[in-house]
């Protein structure tokens, strides 16, 4: 039997990092395979940004090891930097330079000559829909425009891994959606791996294929959303809007408000049985929907042990 191993983009094992006496990363371990859009989710102060800095070789871990494409960012940061592009939450561009000048500056740092730098800068500006703003100084950009330009900078050298730390923080929904579209498009066109750190779950769910939840420096769970839901036995619900004339105790329906009822879904057969029973007893069914737990529901349940989702179950 052939055993196929997925190529690892990022490998982290027993990583520990402490600042003064505070343990920020408490022996975390995970792997990101090539081509995944990996959501590293946690609240503020969970350790996400510290991990990003370690992946970039900006700070050293106290224990454990980390490899990016098999290379240690601690020992060989310059080799790692050639393969990764990073968008940090707080880092800013030079306000006195235009968007194009900023990108050309960073392009030349990557070793491009003037012509290559200009070509590539214009290309990535188009990728993030910032071409028309290229000659404006950054000081005149909105927050959304700055974020898109930062994303463009991340794509400059066509990295195979893109590390994004809170790319949609502070953005309106439309700008955040645009950022997500640009990230997804880049990942698809370049077969790149994306490592996304965020606490904005709605946007993470739009693009991520796999997740790890972190809180207080500890990994809470890892996996695809469907697997996490199965593993932790999260319930699906059936919501029915109906006029019910008879008592349907056997189905354990919970009345919500007006004509809306809810029941935990055991299997698909249950839906047709409930509808049939209501209709045969003289009632009317207006709508039926199945509500699967969202990333937010799963996240709050696991991270905070008692969020909105848990109240339903």
């Amino acid at each position, binding site marked *: 039997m052939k055993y196929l191993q997925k190529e690892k983009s990022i490998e982290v094992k027993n990583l520990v990092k402490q600042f003064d006496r505070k343990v920020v990363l408490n022996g975390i371990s995970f792997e990101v395979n090539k081509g995944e859009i990996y959501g590293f989710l946690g609240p503020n102060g969970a350790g996400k940004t510290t991990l990003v800095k370690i992946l970039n070789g*900006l700070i050293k871990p106290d224990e454990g090891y980390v490899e990016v494409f098999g290379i240690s960012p601690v020992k060989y940061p310059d080799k790692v930097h050639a393969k990764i592009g*990073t968008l940090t939450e*707080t*880092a*800013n561009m030079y*306000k006195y330079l235009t968007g194009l000048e900023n990108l050309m500056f*960073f392009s030349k*740092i990557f070793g491009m000559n003037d012509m290559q730098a200009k070509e590539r800068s214009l290309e990535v500006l188009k990728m993030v829909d910032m071409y028309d703003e290229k000659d404006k100084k950054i000081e005149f950009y909105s927050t959304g425009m700055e974020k898109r330009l930062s994303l463009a900078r991340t794509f400059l050298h066509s990295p195979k891994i893109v590390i994004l730390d809170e790319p949609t923080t502070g953005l309106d929904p439309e700008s955040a959606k645009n950022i997500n579209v640009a990230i997804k498009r880049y990942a698809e066109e370049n077969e790149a791996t994306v490592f996304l750190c965020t606490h904005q779950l709605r946007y993470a769910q739009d693009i991520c294929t796999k997740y790890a939840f972190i809180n207080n420096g500890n990994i809470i769970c890892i996996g695809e959303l469907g697997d996490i839901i199965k593993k932790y036995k999260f319930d699906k619900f059936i919501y029915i809007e109906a006029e019910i004339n008879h008592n349907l105790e056997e189905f354990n329906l919970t009345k919500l408000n007006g004509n809306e009822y809810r029941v935990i879904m055991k299997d698909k057969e249950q839906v047709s049985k409930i509808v049939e029973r209501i209709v045969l007893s003289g009632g009317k069914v207006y709508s039926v929907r199945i509500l699967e737990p969202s990333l937010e529901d799963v996240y709050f349940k696991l991270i905070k042990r008692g969020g909105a989702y848990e109240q339903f179950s």
Partner: protein
Amino acid sequence: MNELCVLLKKEVKEYIRKHKILIILSVFILIGIISPLGTKYLGAILQQLLPSGYEIKFRSPSEIEAYFQFFKNISQLGLIIFIFATVGIMSDEFEKKTIINILSKGINRGTVILSKFVVTSVIFLLSYTVSIMVFRYYTGIFWGNNIRIGVVIYSSILIYFYGVLNISVNIFFGTIFENKILTLVVCFAFNIIQMFLGIFPQIARYLPVSSLSQCVYIVEGKIDIYETIPALLSTLFFTALLLIISIYLFNRKEIDQ
């Protein structure tokens, strides 16, 4: 080398776009103009300000007095403005959070510091050179430039390297404090403390700040060049030392942003 060139260009653009070059050049050119003019016409100006019936008798000011005024203005007003204008060369990168973007690209940290040092030193050289050329133009008109050019150049070297020392102090404390205000305070403290220490003659000859007075004495012919060597060597030594330590500290710094 490529990284250094890219960073140098960026630094120059910053000085131009933020109008720092304009401010520094303007102040230094002004010093070049007002030093000889002020010396030459001070008596006449004061006479104008007196109420009628009063008279002040001034002896004719000399070219050496003009040099005294010039070096005083450069080392006080000029240096103060220069420190103010350049105080953020390192600390701004931390305060404005632009440093992460550079470092996460894998750029050599020593190159970052070198680029700032080189560009700021060149701008100081340029500004000072323009200032002294303007000054020499007027001293030529008023006094005929009787002071030998070699003496002027050597005195200028003393002033220039003291300015360069202040640049390395700026970079050093900017790297440590990551804060413009603190860096500014310490830069001034560095100069003031030396002036107090200058009270002690045994220490004074080795203090870099002594260069600021020695440059005048050289022009006056009161001291020989060899008497300026301890202060000059001390200036060069501390400049190099502070730069090396800055690069060392910056390399070890964990960027907490």
